[in-house]
């Protein structure tokens, strides 16, 4: 390990920054240096924005979205068709679909996919909450928009099995999504096409 060249406060900042996705130790060091150099124009407003986020931002208890209100803006939106629920793996997928303006619907964030290899089981996902939400009877259609990976497909199959007997139409987001393609990275045109051509299971 390289010997520490700065005080423990800076080292701590670097260590925390390195935990962010996409940042390795070297770029975290660069970012930390940048922050302390740009104290007034960046570090102070960033600190305030982070404190604000910590205080106000949370998970929507209905759909799992991240927002400043609970239920979230999407769940409270009367202009949306709340009877159609798009099931996604992660909040980032929800945001990708929103950016693509693919569908005027509500969402359900699973919080991941079933993965024995990573030790993620049904109890770690919001499958039970989804079944409860559907059991209440207001949801008429589910669009299962999990990624086309092995784990995504297994999770979709598992979900379909859980929903059997409930009065809901389930469709899969199928066309245009390449196998192994992650929803988050799809270009928005592909996504809208995929949403339009979703197929009934």
């Amino acid at each position, binding site marked *: 390990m390289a010997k520490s060249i700065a005080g423990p406060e800076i080292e701590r900042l670097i260590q925390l920054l390195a935990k962010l996705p996409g940042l390795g130790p*070297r770029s975290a060091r660069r970012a930390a240096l940048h922050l302390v150099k740009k104290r007034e124009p960046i570090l102070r407003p960033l600190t305030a924005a982070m404190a604000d986020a910590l205080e106000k931002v949370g998970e929507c208890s209905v759909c799992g979205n991240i927002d400043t209100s609970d239920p979230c803006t999407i769940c409270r939106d009367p202009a949306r068709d709340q009877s159609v629920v798009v099931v996604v793996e992660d909040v980032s997928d929800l945001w990708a679909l929103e950016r693509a303006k693919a569908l005027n619907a509500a969402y359900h964030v699973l919080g991941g996919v079933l993965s024995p290899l990573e030790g993620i089981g049904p109890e770690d996902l919001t499958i039970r909450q989804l079944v409860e939400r559907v059991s209440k009877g207001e949801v008429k259609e589910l669009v299962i928009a999990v990624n086309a990976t092995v784990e995504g497909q297994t999770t979709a199959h598992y979900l379909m099995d859980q929903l059997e007997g409930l009065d809901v139409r389930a469709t899969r987001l199928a066309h245009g999504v390449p196998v192994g393609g992650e929803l988050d990275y799809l270009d928005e045109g592909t996504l809208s096409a995929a949403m339009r051509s979703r197929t009934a299971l």
Partner: protein
Amino acid sequence: MGRQSEIGHLRLFDFRNYELLDLSFQKRFVVFAGPNGAGKTNLLEALSLLSPGRGLRRAPYGEMARQGTQSGFSVKASVRIASEETTVVTSVRLDGEGPNSRLVRIDETQAKSAEELLDIARIVWLTPAMDGLFTGPAGDRRRFLDRMVLSIDPTHGRRASDFERAMRSRNKLLSDNRIDDRWLAGIEMQMAELGVAMAVARNELVANLTNAIALADPDLPFPKAGLVLSPGFEEGGLDGPAVQVEDRYRERLARDRYRDAGAGRTLEGPHRADLEVTHLAKHMPAGLSSTGEQKALLVGLIIAHARLTSVLSGMAPILLLDEIAAHLDARRRASLFDLVGDLGGQTFMTGTDESLFEALGDRAQIITIADGAVREPREE
């Protein structure tokens, strides 16, 4: 025939024993000549990174980085496809800044998956490490078979790695004693779809290859190989429409969960397949043929496959033939050069002795290597 890709330039940075190396290729035959340990195979390995996977040694990326470097390595190649130039850069970072695998950029754009490389070139190799293919473990033959499928059907790699992942997921649930019927059924459905698709693709390749071999000139010094695939499936094998094969396999997976849990692995599936090769004229299993015969069989197989690739994909493959001339007598060498020349693609070969390539005459560009450096190509 179709598109032809040719590598015009190669640049290595901190790759194996090369700190920095620039090479230009002018001819369809390129020979790397030099003493043992000079770095000839390393050059072929660098070229093999133009195809998906970890290259012809299947080495971990950490091993490919030059000893002593901390940052990683890169391999850059310019490939001409129908007079258009494409630049492919593979890079691996070892300092924790990059992803845990290699990054591929094609014309400055990051490739979404390694399969995109198959649009650039189809690469086929033959190395001394494959000499024991017919006598070694079935896993080596499966991998050999799958690489042959992949160079014709780019989706095969993803299919195989997805199957592997699904199977490992099932094994994990079984070994954790977590017999969740719905979860396992979801996984087994994937295994059935992917596994049968894999088996069908392999089967098709073996059928096509068998035809290609049957059509080959019987007077060639490379004996014809008979191929029989045992697909790895029990009762009924691959008989019937694919959906039925899938259903049968899925039902058996569900039935055999406890047996597999006891065995600690999945006992049925495409991961248990094997390719049996025979010396047709002698009605002998390839494994019982002489060393030289085995090599000649393998060469014949590679050539037939290269020809098939070029017919089915429209791209003449780039051949990497390591130490190819060493085990072949002069007649076989000359015949090999002509066969390879007829394929129309680019061929890279290595050898400790330049004289082994005399029959190529001025068809070949000889590049002499000594200790991680290159002596400029000889002026003719």
